[in-house]
């Protein structure tokens, strides 16, 4: 993708960034955030917040500029992509905090991820959850304290 495209709209680039921030798990149960197809959702969420968008644009633009004009970031191996992002964090300290709020919400609310984590892929209501009952020994202890 040409470099004059807003980095948040540069889907291959943003996908690679998201896959770097949340890579696939080693056991294969969890996909990378980019491979999960979250670039559009995360990009849109960032763009809805003007301040956040400016910070992310600047930071991602710097990463893309530093790694080459023809989309080289996408072709880098994982350690090199991590290094490329880290290299920009001193100049753009708000980049990661600005991305991860929408990213983590999108990722950890995705049914594929919830299943991969061993969690039910459903909202809390109406099913609710099981909760361990009060330890009967503790309850007995309290009742004896109350009696005294």
């Amino acid at each position, binding site marked *: 993708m040409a470099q004059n495209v807003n980095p948040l709209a540069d889907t291959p680039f943003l996908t690679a960034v998201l896959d770097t921030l949340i890579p696939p798990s080693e056991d294969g149960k969890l996909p990378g955030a980019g491979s999960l197809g979250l670039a559009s959702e995360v990009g849109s969420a960032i763009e809805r917040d003007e301040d956040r968008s400016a910070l992310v644009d600047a930071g991602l633009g710097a990463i893309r500029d530093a790694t080459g004009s023809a989309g080289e970031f996408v072709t880098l191996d994982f350690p090199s992509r991590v290094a490329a992002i880290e290299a920009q964090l001193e100049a753009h300290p708000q980049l990661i905090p600005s991305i991860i709020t929408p990213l983590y919400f999108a990722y950890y609310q995705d049914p594929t991820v919830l299943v991969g984590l061993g969690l039910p892929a459903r909202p809390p209501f109406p099913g609710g959850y099981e909760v361990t009952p009060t*330890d009967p020994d503790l309850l007995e202890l309290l009742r004896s304290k109350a009696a005294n």
Partner: protein
Amino acid sequence: MPNEPVGVLIIGAGASGGAFAWRIADAGMSVLCLEQGPWMKQSDYPTNNLDWESRAATEFSPNPNTRLAARDGKGAGGDAAYPIHNEGTPIKPVMFNAVGGSTILWAAHFPRFTPRDFRVRSDDGVADDWPIDYETLEPFFALNDQMMGVSGLAGDPAYPKHEPPLPPLPLGATGNTLARGFEKLGWHWWPSDSAVISQDYNGREACINLGPCTSGCAHGAKASTDITYWPVAERKGVELRTGCRVKEITLNDAGMADGVLYYDEGGTLQEQKAEIVVLASNGIGTPRLLLNSANERYPDGLANSSGLVGKNLMFHPYALIRGVFDEPLDGKGPRGCSIWSHEFYETDRSRGFVRGYSYEMTRGVGPAGEALFGASRGRIPWGPGHHEAWSEIYDHTAGMVGITEDLPDEANTVTLDPELTDSDGIPAPKITYEVSENSHRQLTHAEERGHEVLRAAGATDTYSDHLIEQAGWHLMGTARMGSDPNTSVVNEWGRSHDVKNLFIIDGSIFVTAGGVNPTSTIQALALYVADSIKRNIGNLFD
């Protein structure tokens, strides 16, 4: 067509307004409540959907500024929220504006103030005693427990004997684990009194452990006054008008309140006459309205001859302490309600501070919340190691908060912002507040002892936040009660010293803050004021 005059006009349909409306309904007067927010629908609450965590953090945020920023037509309650200038306080005020008020989003932790909380001047030589005591309020605490539906276990040695109407909620693995830690150290602990029903009760179904009570209960097991007091208040004839934001309280020539001016749902300014005006707008909304009601007779704000309207703002500064455990902890279940401890509640000057704090054990947070929480504290990295770090923490973390007693200080204030307004153009509140040295010492103590008890419970790693920023839930003291008009705003039954038919029933009238959540005490006070009005109806304005 002008609105028909009413006998009693209540401003605000939250914790205190709902309780008061129900109790005053049989006094033989017509009762109207004006509420700036809407009725909420349980089907709209975040836990109905997979994206419950992001919605809870944005459109259902307890911070009104966040809700307003998130709205784009989506912020819960819409324009009912009013902005708050909160840059001058390290604790950000939070609240909700709807029928039910902040009980829509609260954790429903339901401790009462203790008897000693009402006499800190006599016992500890600080602040002031209340003009009423625990024994006076006790029947109203009990009545309120019945109305809200409170689960708990009788016999807590930290309190005079009382019997919650429902058995305690299950402690869960988290509560069991932490309770053993307290027990090992010989420290006080007890299952929390919780306004969450453990069994079916008054047409409501028992809690099914949705987890995040603090974004509204989709099941209706958590008490909020829209489903507890308001349905019965309306059946008793109380009229509740939503979407109505009061601009000012008006006076007649005799200096008595004669009603209000308010913006209706369509934004039209309306006049409503009343014989009695009752403020139930919380510790920020109430002083805001009194200050916005300044007139020629009361240029410094209504009911403010003492100069104390908006002063002595108290929060509860919170410390957060968390521990990571090897074993899984079922972090679901009512978010704020597990166990509490009053081990460090009473004054022991050898600790370096006066008064004290309670602990409340909290349960886990959701998957995204835990990832963000861990990231903000450098515990869950992005990139390499992300999944491993998340797995070590999620459902393996138990936490607690230390709720410290804030002491009144006239420098901590609610004033009117000269520029910021709400959507109706009414001046917004501005908060100026500092955490006192006494509170800082309590917070430090709470952190240190919290680490100790978490370790005793088996935590392999502990960490803490000295002060939680987004925790200004408890808004107290800004129109304090007392017997001396020079040093208080209302008398011992909530009546303004200056305006004899103006009553205040929310947290504004607290003299001191205690070290526990205030809602149980706020509602008991509201019921007590309602009964006081009924009892004194013959000479109410003397």
